[in-house]
C-alpha cells in the first residue's frame, strides 16, 4: 500500500511543472487565449511533442511511451496548474479512443503519427441538441457498408480547427474517424465560456469517415480515462487558485491587518484545501484503478469527475471572492482559472450526471 507517486512519476511531474512554468507564463497564457487564433503555436506543440507527451498513452507497439493513466493525470494536473492553452487533452482523447480500438487497422494507421505529435486528433461527441450524457449521440452513418458517410453537427469540439483528424461519436456507441479537409466537413469557431480552450462547431455533410471497431469495455475505459484526465486538470486549476487566494490573503491589508487573519477569509481558504486535496486523492485513485483495477475504475472515474468538477468550481469561485474587486477585473489572471474550472464541470458529463452513475454503480 503506497498512495504516492513513484520516483519516475515524480520526475514526470517535476519536468512538466518546470517546462510549463517556463513556457506558459501568465502573459503568454493571456496572449494565447486572446490573440492566437488556434490558442497555441506550432512551436509550442513541437516542444510538447519533444517531451513525448502526445505518445504518453499510446502503446509502445504503436510507437508511444505506453505509460499509464496515473502518468497522464500527473501531466494533466500540471497543465491545469499552468492553465496552459494547448490541444494536448483533445489529442489525448483521440489517442485513447484509437488505442481502445486495439487491433483496429484505422487505429494502427493513425497512432504512430499521433505518438510523435505529427498527427493531431480531437474528439467530437455532443450533438447540437445533446443532453447531459457525454456519449449519447443520434448520429447514424449513411453511405455504403465499409464506406460510411456522416451528416450532422457536433458542438463544443475542442481544437477542431487545429486537428488533423476528428474522432466522431455516433449512435449506439459507434465511433468514426474523419480527416481534416474531408468533403462536407465544416469547422466554425464558437465563442466559449473558457477562452483558454478553443471550441468549434463541426458540421458534417455526407462526409466520408472510417469506423473504429471498439469493444464496449475498451470504449468505456477510454472515456473514463479522458474524464479522469479532465478531473486532474481541475485539481491543478483548484491548486493554483488556492495558492493565488492564500498569497493574496497574506498580502492584502484591510482594517490594519492582512485579510487572511480574518476567519471570513481564512476559513474559506481552509475549505479550498479540503476540496483540492480530496479531489486530488480521488483523481489519483481513479487513475490508479484505470491502470490496475478495471472492475472499480468505472465507479472511481465517475467519482473523480464529479468531485473534482465541483471542487474546481467552488475553489475558484471562493478564490475570486477572497480577491474582491481585483479578482473581478479582466486584467487579473484569476478569471481564466474560474472559467476553465466551470467549463470542466460541464464537459463530458456534469457533476450531477456522474453522481447518477455513481448511484448506479455503487448500488444505491
Amino acid at each position, binding site marked *: 500500500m503506497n498512495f504516492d507517486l513513484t520516483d519516475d512519476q515524480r520526475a514526470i511531474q517535476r519536468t512538466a511543472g518546470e517546462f510549463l512554468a517556463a513556457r506558459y507564463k501568465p502573459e503568454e497564457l493571456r496572449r494565447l487565449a486572446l490573440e492566437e487564433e488556434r490558442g497555441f503555436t506550432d512551436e509550442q506543440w513541437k516542444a510538447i511533442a519533444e517531451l513525448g507527451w502526445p505518445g504518453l498513452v499510446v502503446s509502445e507497439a504503436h510507437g508511444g511511451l505506453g505509460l499509464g493513466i496515473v502518468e497522464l493525470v500527473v501531466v494533466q494536473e500540471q497543465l491545469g496548474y499552468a492553465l496552459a492553452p494547448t490541444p494536448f487533452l483533445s489529442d489525448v482523447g483521440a489517442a485513447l479512443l484509437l488505442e481502445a480500438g486495439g487491433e483496429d487497422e484505422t487505429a494502427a494507421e493513425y497512432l504512430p503519427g499521433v505518438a510523435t505529435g505529427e498527427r493531431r486528433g480531437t474528439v467530437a461527441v*455532443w450533438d447540437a*441538441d*445533446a*443532453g*447531459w*450524457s*457525454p456519449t*449519447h449521440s443520434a448520429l447514424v452513418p449513411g453511405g455504403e457498408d465499409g464506406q460510411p458517410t456522416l451528416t450532422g453537427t457536433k*458542438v*463544443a469540439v475542442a481544437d477542431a480547427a487545429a486537428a488533423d483528424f476528428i474522432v466522431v461519436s455516433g449512435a449506439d456507441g459507434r465511433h468514426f474517424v474523419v480527416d481534416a479537409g474531408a468533403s462536407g466537413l465544416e469547422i466554425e469557431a*464558437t*465563442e*466559449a*465560456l*473558457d477562452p483558454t480552450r478553443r*471550441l468549434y462547431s463541426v458540421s458534417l455533410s455526407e462526409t466520408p469517415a472510417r469506423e473504429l471497431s471498439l469493444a464496449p469495455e475498451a470504449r468505456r475505459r477510454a472515456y473514463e480515462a479522458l474524464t479522469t484526465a479532465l478531473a486532474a486538470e481541475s485539481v491543478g486549476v483548484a491548486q493554483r487558485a488556492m495558492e493565488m487566494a492564500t498569497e493574496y490573503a497574506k498580502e492584502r*491589508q*484591510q*482594517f*490594519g*491587518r492582512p485579510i487572511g487573519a*480574518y476567519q*471570513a*477569509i481564512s476559513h474559506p481558504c481552509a475549505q479550498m484545501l479540503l476540496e483540492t486535496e480530496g479531489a486530488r486523492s480521488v483523481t489519483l485513485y481513479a487513475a490508479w484503478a484505470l491502470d490496475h483495477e478495471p472492475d472499480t475504475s468505472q465507479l472511481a472515474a465517475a467519482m473523480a469527475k464529479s468531485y473534482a468538477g465541483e471542487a474546481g468550481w467552488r475553489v475558484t*469561485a471562493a478564490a*475570486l*471572492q477572497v480577491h*474582491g*474587486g*481585483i*479578482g*473581478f*477585473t*479582466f*486584467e487579473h489572471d484569476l*478569471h481564466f482559472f*474560474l*472559467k476553465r474550472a*466551470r*467549463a470542466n464541470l*460541464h*464537459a463530458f458529463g*456534469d457533476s*450531477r450526471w456522474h453522481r447518477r452513475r455513481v448511484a448506479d454503480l455503487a448500488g444505491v
Partner: protein
Amino acid sequence: MDLTLSPQEEAFRDELRGWLDEHHPGAEPEGDEAGFEFRRSWQKTLHQAGWAGVSWPKEYGGRGASLIEQAIYNEEVTRAKAPAAVNVLGLAMGGPTVIAHGSEEQRKRYLEPILSAEEIWCQGFSEPESGSDLASLKTKAERHGDEWVVTGQKVWTTLAHHAKWCMLVARTDPDAPKHQGLTYFLMDMDQDAVQVRPLAQITGEAEFNELFLEEARIPHANIVGGEGNGWPVAITTLMHERATLAFGLQIQVKIALGELMEKARSTTVNGGSAAEDEIIRDRLAQLYIESEVLRLNAYRGLTHTMKHGVPGPEGSLGKWQWADVNQALTELALDIAGPQALLRSDDWTYRFLRARANSIEGGTTEILKNIVAERVLGLPRLR
C-alpha cells in the same frame, strides 16, 4: 397588516404604468455611445413628465414620493423593461447627498442639471488599496488658497468618461484619525489632470473605470458638508445607494427567474424538458421561494422604515441575500444548459460571470455580515 396597495398607491402605480406604456422608447440601440445618448434622452423625457427623481422633495424638482411609491416606481420601471435613467448616480446618490448636506447655493447649482441629465455624475470613493476599508483611502487634497489640489487614484467608477461631476472623497488632513480628515468634494471631471481608463471585467465588458488624478483642481466652494466632515457625508451617499437599489434588485431577480423557468421548459435533456427533472425542479422552486423572501423582506423593511424612520433588521439583509440568490440562479442556468454551458450561446454566460461580483460590489457579503452581527445582533467588534 395589509399587503394590498392603498387607493393612493394604486393611483400612483396606474398613472406611472399608463405613462410608461405610452412613452416607452423601445429597445436600446447597439453601441455604447448610442446607448448612452438614448438613455440621456429617455431621462429628459422622464424629467419633463416629472418622473425623474421621484424620491426627491418637490421643492428641489422631485416628486416627493413616499417610500412605498418609490418601491412601486422601481418595480414598474423594471417590469416595463424601461431603460435606466442615464444619470443614475446623480439621481440616486449625488442629488440626495447635496439635498442632505449641501448648502442652499449648491442645491440651486447642482440639482436641476442632475434631473435633466445635462450633467452626469460619477462616484470617486473606492481606491485600489482601500476596498472594504473605505476610510483608509489615500487620495490626498491640499489647499492652495481658494483651491484644493488633488492627487491619487480611484477605481470602480462608472460613467466616468461621461461625467461632469465626481463625488470625490479625499484626505485633507493626513494627521487626523482615519475616519476624520476626509472631505467630500464635487470635482469637475473636465480637466486634463483627471485621466479616465476603462477597466474591463471578467465578462469582457468595461462597465467601470479607473480615475487617475494628478494635481486636479477643485474650488473650495465645492466641498459638501464641510472640510474634514467627509465620512458622514459619504455614508449618506452609500445609504442612498443601498436603499434605492434594493427594490430594483429584487424585481430583476424575479424577472430573471421567470426567464430561467422558460429556459428550463424549452431545454431538452435526455428526452424530457429540464423543467421536468426533479432536481432542476427542486432548485427552481427553492429559488422561487428565496426570490419571494427577498421581495417580502424588502416590503417589510419599507414598512419598518416608514413607521420608525430607520430600517428594521431585515433591511440589512437584502443586498447580501440578493447576491446569494442571483449567483445560485445564474449557476443553475448553466447546469440547465448541459454541454451548451461550454459555449457563450446566450446571455446567461454573461449573467453568470457578472453575478460573481454581486457578493463584492456595494459592500462585500463578508462586510455585510459583520454589519449585521455588530449593529443588529450587538455582537462584539473584532477590529
